[in-house]
């Protein structure tokens, strides 16, 4: 998806919703995901003593790191450079893309392998490199699948969770020129992808990966994967590039460990991922393998603005996707409906901050304030509050429909005049009650078409409580 389509995508959220709810099979699969992911996360959290205490601790780590970001970032850069890394700062997406392209061109790179990174999705790095004539292969299995299918991630941890086993089988049969074969079941399909990817790993000139935490005290970068593809991207090619953002910085290795314990349990319900790696820098004298040259590109892309805003808590996010897995909106419509790089509750907060509220104000409205996301967020981000604050910004910027804004003003004005409110409802409700007395509800009702599109409108019993209630009832009964 290009930036332009994405922009349109966010604007088109409501029509995307309608379309995605019609995909019967996908709706069923998403419902299964909504059942299964919370189950495995809950089991992992229950098995782990002191999850809540650790959660509070990680929140403090993240807040402390952000409060002292300049200090820890400088320390990280210093240490990383001491370890032999080249460190670059990128103000925005295009700057990151240019830096990465320059590095690749300096090394006459033709073939590039890539680990999973939402940051490079954010900057649209891949098409940028491809336009310059390079072959870029995604090596995370999920990313590889959607790259072959020409799609974008529907989930920040499991990018291809929207695809069925059959779809992936068809895709592999079509894309891999390996002749006649059965390709039955996930195991065979994984084996095939492994064989195909192995060739790319061995031939690559440059490897690009992301980062889950940047450790200030050592200048190391932590990466978690379940497939080990990150390590191959980092160690096999001559040049390694880490594309990440400045808000990944934590002070110490032990802080990264605390974060890791929450991240993996929250994301996949595992106690730990299969691979957790710490990248120090280029191959040292005496090392038998590893990259000759390593680069770390630190992207800002409005994160400094977010840090200085009332939405700073969003930078505590550790990208576990628990909020997606527990959000009934995300489960209902899937990631693509959001039309943005990041989706679900965290995406609905981040997208307006990374792009603009004008083009993505539908997203903060895709929330029932059910609070399940905040309940499971390992970084204790008050997501429903941030989404409501974005709706407040939307209201103040007059981006919401005029009839809504005006309607709310009139509604609030009437509610602030109790006498008038009680008199008018005492007139209206009995009439409505009388009209609905037989059926008990209305198929349609003036000013309630959003409601009655999907359900009947229950009729009132008749006279309002305030109309019926006699404050001196007790005394009367006592007397009687």
């Amino acid at each position: 998806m290009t930036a332009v389509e994405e922009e349109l995508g966010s604007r088109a959220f409501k029509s995307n919703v309608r379309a995605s709810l019609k995909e019967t099979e996908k709706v069923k699969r998403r419902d299964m995901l909504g059942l299964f992911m919370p189950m495995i996360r809950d089991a992992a959290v229950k098995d782990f003593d002191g999850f809540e205490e650790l959660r509070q601790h990680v929140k403090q780590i993240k807040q402390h790191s952000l409060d002292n970001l300049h200090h820890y970032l400088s320390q990280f850069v210093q240490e990383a450079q001491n370890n032999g890394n080249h460190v670059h700062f990128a103000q925005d997406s295009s700057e990151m893309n240019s830096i990465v392209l320059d590095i690749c061109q300096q090394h006459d790179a033709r073939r590039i392998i890539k680990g999973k990174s939402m940051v490079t999705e954010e900057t649209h790095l891949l098409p940028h490199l491809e336009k310059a004539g390079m072959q870029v292969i995604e090596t995370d299995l999920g990313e590889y699948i959607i790259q072959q299918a020409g799609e974008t991630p529907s989930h920040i941890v499991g990018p291809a969770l929207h695809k069925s086993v059959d779809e992936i089988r068809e895709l592999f049969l079509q894309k891999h020129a390996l002749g006649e074969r059965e390709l039955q079941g996930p195991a065979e399909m994984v084996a095939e992808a492994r064989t195909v990817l192995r060739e790319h790993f061995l031939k690559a000139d440059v490897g690009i990966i992301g980062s889950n935490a940047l450790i200030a005290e050592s200048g190391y970068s932590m990466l978690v994967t379940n497939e080990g593809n990150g390590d191959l991207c980092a160690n096999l090619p001559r040049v390694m590039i880490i594309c990440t953002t400045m808000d990944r910085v934590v002070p110490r290795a032990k802080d990264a460990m605390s974060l890791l314990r929450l991240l993996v349990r929250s994301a996949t319900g595992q106690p730990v991922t299969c691979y957790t790696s710490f990248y120090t820098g280029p191959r040292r004298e005496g090392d038998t393998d590893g990259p000759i040259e390593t680069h770390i590109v630190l992207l800002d892309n409005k994160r400094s603005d977010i840090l200085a805003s009332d939405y700073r808590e969003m930078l505590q996010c550790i990208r576990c996707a628990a909020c997606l897995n527990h959000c009934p909106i995300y489960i209902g419509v899937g990631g693509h409906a959001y039309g943005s790089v990041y989706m679900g509750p965290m995406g609905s907060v981040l997208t307006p901050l990374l792009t603009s509220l004008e083009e993505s104000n539908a997203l903060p409205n895709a929330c029932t304030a059910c609070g399940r996301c905040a309940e499971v967020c390992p970084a204790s981000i008050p997501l429903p509050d941030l989404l409501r604050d974005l709706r407040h910004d939307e209201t103040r910027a007059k981006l919401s429909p005029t009839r809504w804004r005006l309607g709310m003003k009139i509604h609030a004005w009437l509610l602030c005049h109790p006498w008038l409110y009680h008199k008018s409802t005492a007139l209206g409700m009995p009439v409505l009650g009388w009209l609905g007395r037989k059926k008990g509800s209305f198929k349609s009702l003036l000013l309630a078409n959003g409601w009655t599109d999907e359900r009947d409108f229950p009729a009132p019993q008749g006279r309002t409580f305030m109309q019926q209630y006699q404050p001196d009832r007790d005394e009367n009964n006592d007397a009687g």
Partner: protein
Amino acid sequence: MDIQAGNQHSNQATPRFQVALYVTCLVDLFRPSVAFDSIQLLEQAGCKVTVPNLQTCCGQPTYNTGDYESTIPLARQVIAAFEFADYVVVPSGSCAGMICHHYPKLLQDEWHDRALALAAKTFELTTFLADIAKIERAPGQVRQLPTVTYHDSCAGLRELGVKDQPRALLKDLCDLEVSELSQTEVCCGFGGTFCAKMPELSGKMVGDKLDSALATEATILAGGDMGCLMNIAGRAKRLGKVIEVRHIAELLADDLDGPAIGEGKS
């Protein structure tokens, strides 16, 4: 409605609690019987109940839409009308959550302190009955109830921890075990103005909730929030599915003879 039992109880001794009832706009307008049931239950639990008449709505619709400016005077109006009380009891988790959690966030300075003071003495109905007043017996007769399932409203559940209280009350007062919904902690898709802003999505969510309710084969779906209950009842009615949707106060107060939410009198 039999209000005699409650009054007899409160006549016996000085009331143990002075309670101001926050009726909520949906109960006031759509289902006044829930407020009468609540009064009966509170009186049975030894409370003296007053109903301040300067109450309208807690302001959730404007607040959740993002119109904080219009919500502030409403919040102040509620605080001014209820801060005299020893306890404020609300037959709705989301309205109680609004008072307890969101008024203090919304208001500054002196009003912030007054909001906190009100929050400290405001309780959702089943929480107050079970944990504070510790009601021991039902105000009305206890009859054999049909199978009941329970919808946990999100705000009550997550903002106020309302989970065991309604189930304990149904058990202790009505000798009833709840047939639990699958995914009972998932939202029903009401979400205040959300259901009108994003009807298809809301329709999908309430459809799922209704399916879970029907799968329990319960005769009654009870809950503590009129918004959710009207949403679920309206969906059942639209699809012609038969399940009685009622506020938990109706079950506890044995007020089951009138039509359920969304049902007609015939």
